[in-house]
């Protein structure tokens, strides 16, 4: 089964969305992950049907409003039929959205795994708890996976699209469950939580505590140790759960979508991510090249047109003899058609022609990077750069149409 799934990549976005139950959207910061996750979910809800949920981390305000999430905490909300009607779309299925709330997520985990109410209350009241959970390395990543697991297990959705948190390293999200397991399984944790007094007498740990005492003060270490002791009471539940979450990532029903722009750094990160996914035998469903310039910008015909237009609009002052030939006619004719001053028209057309080269250079670089991404994944989809922000459902569906073009 597993081998078969890897051997059969999806031919397009629609079949990917139709064949998977969990989609993890990842990529480096600033490439439009959140928008793409929402667009994929909106597309699945409108075109394929079923109940589709997008789990988002930190959407822009207007996008959050459009999806009806924002200050609603951990609950999923349905994007209303009116919102779809307003943009003239009748969805085949339902679109739901939820936001990841780290604090609520941790509290929920503690409640679930605490062996009794005493431990639960002590952890929640521990002064280090909030500080640690909000800073705990990769805590966002783990919670996103945890939430995915919970939502999938609830059986309420046909497809869940996860907008992975912004990470320093995009792979943290994959390592999060393993790290959680390691954290609880580590000898260091066990060692650290041996009652403080007796530790002072073990030869192995003595130098550490002597130095640590001087540097950090013993009280701080004690606070930490206490907190870890409380946490250890929840070990079994956490580790078991982390294992399940880890399995979910490798599940045949799960696929990854890597989002990137075609700039140098994000594309580099995307290649790295795609390679790692393949190495880990995880399913890379598609690479989305976001904000791509149209391929027509690199066409020879376009460059030729730019050159002709440039010649046709050379300043009359610079080349007075040339003004009465065919080229001069263009400016006059366009000025006539637009009822504008010839001088202004000449300036505009000249600027347009002169500027084309700038974008053509960028487009050529983009084309190379897109080809490189194509060697990593059979399905690379380009979403063109839009001339506006993505603010509402209509904009999301516009992005989605490009995804399946």
């Amino acid at each position, binding site marked *: 089964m597993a081998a078969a799934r890897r051997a059969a990549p999806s031919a397009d976005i629609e079949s990917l969305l139709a064949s998977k139950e969990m989609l993890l959207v990842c990529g480096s910061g600033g490439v439009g992950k959140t928008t793409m996750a929402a667009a994929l979910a909106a597309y699945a809800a409108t075109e394929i049907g079923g109940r589709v949920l997008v789990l988002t981390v930190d959407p*822009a305000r207007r996008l959050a409003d459009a999806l009806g999430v924002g200050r609603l905490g951990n609950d999923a909300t349905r994007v209303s039929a009116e919102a779809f009607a307003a943009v003239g779309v009748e969805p085949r299925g339902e679109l739901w959205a939820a936001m990841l709330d780290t604090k609520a997520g941790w509290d929920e985990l503690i409640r679930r795994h605490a062996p009794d109410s005493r431990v639960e209350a002590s952890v929640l009241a521990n002064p280090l708890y909030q500080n640690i959970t909000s800073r705990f*390395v990769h805590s966002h990543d783990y919670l996103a996976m945890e939430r995915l697991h919970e939502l999938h297990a609830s059986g309420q959705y046909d497809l869940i699209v996860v907008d992975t948190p912004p990470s320093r390293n995009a792979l943290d999200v994959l390592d999060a469950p393993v790290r959680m397991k390691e954290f609880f399984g580590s000898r260091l944790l066990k060692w650290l939580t041996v009652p403080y007094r007796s530790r002072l007498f073990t030869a192995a740990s003595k130098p550490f505590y002597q130095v640590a005492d001087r540097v950090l003060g013993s009280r701080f270490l004690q606070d930490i140790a206490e907190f870890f002791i409380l946490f250890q009471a929840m070990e079994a539940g956490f580790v078991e759960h982390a294992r399940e979450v880890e399995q979910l990532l490798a599940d045949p029903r799960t696929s990854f979508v890597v989002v990137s722009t075609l700039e140098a750094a994000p594309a580099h990160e995307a290649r790295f991510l795609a390679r790692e996914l393949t190495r880990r035998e995880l399913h890379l469903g598609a690479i989305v090249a976001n904000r791509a310039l149209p391929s027509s910008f690199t066409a020879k015909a376009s460059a030729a047109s730019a050159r002709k237009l440039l010649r046709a609009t050379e300043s009359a002052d610079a080349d007075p003899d040339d003004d009465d030939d065919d080229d001069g006619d263009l400016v006059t004719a366009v000025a006539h058609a637009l009822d504008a001053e010839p001088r202004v028209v000449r300036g505009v057309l000249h600027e347009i022609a002169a500027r084309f080269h700038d974008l053509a250079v960028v487009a050529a670089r983009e084309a190379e990077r897109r080809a490189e991404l194509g060697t990593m994944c059979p399905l690379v989809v380009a979403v063109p750069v839009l001339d506006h922000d993505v603010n509402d459902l209509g904009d999301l569906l516009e992005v989605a149409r490009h995804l399946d073009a």
Partner: protein
Amino acid sequence: MPLLDRRLVFVTGKGGVGKTSVAAALALLAARQGRSVLVCEMDAKGSLAAAFDAPPLSFQPRLVEPQLWAMAMNTEDSLREYLRLFVRVPFIGRIGPLARTFDFVADAAPGVKEILAVGKLCHEVRERNYDLVVVDAEATGHIVAQVGAPKVIRDLVNVGLVREQTDWMLELLQDPGTTGVAIVTTPEEMPVTETTELVARLPVETGVDATVLIANRVLPALFDRRQTAVVDGLDRAHRLLVDAAGRGVDAVVDAARITEARRRVGAGHLARLQQVCPDLPMLIVPELFTRATGRRVVELVADALADELDIVVDDGRAGTRPGGSA
């Protein structure tokens, strides 16, 4: 006070806005003014090395340009150095397991990792090892934890060496004549929103104010109002344009329109930023439209920033200003 006349400058911003290029460019500018500069990458992603087209950086600073040293932060090495300098742990070789243990505690304990990183930077400033330390800092999401680490530690740790040391660190960080924070953004919604949030959070949570905003990849205005009317009406002249310049003319006109539309949206976001932060100066780095990466980009960004900061560097590079093409 000019940004680069400070001793410690953090460069932050949302992921993907070009923080590293800007940090590298600022460091380069200061070095060209004849100052000794250390530039430090905090997230160990390797993009600072790439910006200088240099091999991977390590904790040990390396000269990458005249007067300019570059390093990558590593909290384990920082701890090693700290223990050697302040705790006088005699046998450095023996602290391997100790450092690993510490790393583990630091992973979970608030502020420990951050203070090891920020502590190293503050130490370099205090010892005056360099005239200026430029930090290619964490993204907006993490910078508060980093710059605010001494404050957090002071609140959590009651006694011990570390607590004593937070005092001089805070003094250094909270002096606007010593420390500056430059927030880089692009003219886009999310980066601008994160910037406004950070400007508000910084003084409250860290006691350090933002110093300057740097708008990166700003598209130039191509057309005035009358010209825009012509651009908008060009569809009516489509036939004429195709006859004169060929089929490819559509792409040529599209290119200008996309650029102009994006510029307009971006200008709106930057206007909002200036409205929310009227007291912060904003430096503009234009979109470069270059196929180059790495060192060349740093060069072009440095030229743009030199213009904005009124820095005249007499090294015969005046001809490389990007203004002509962007």
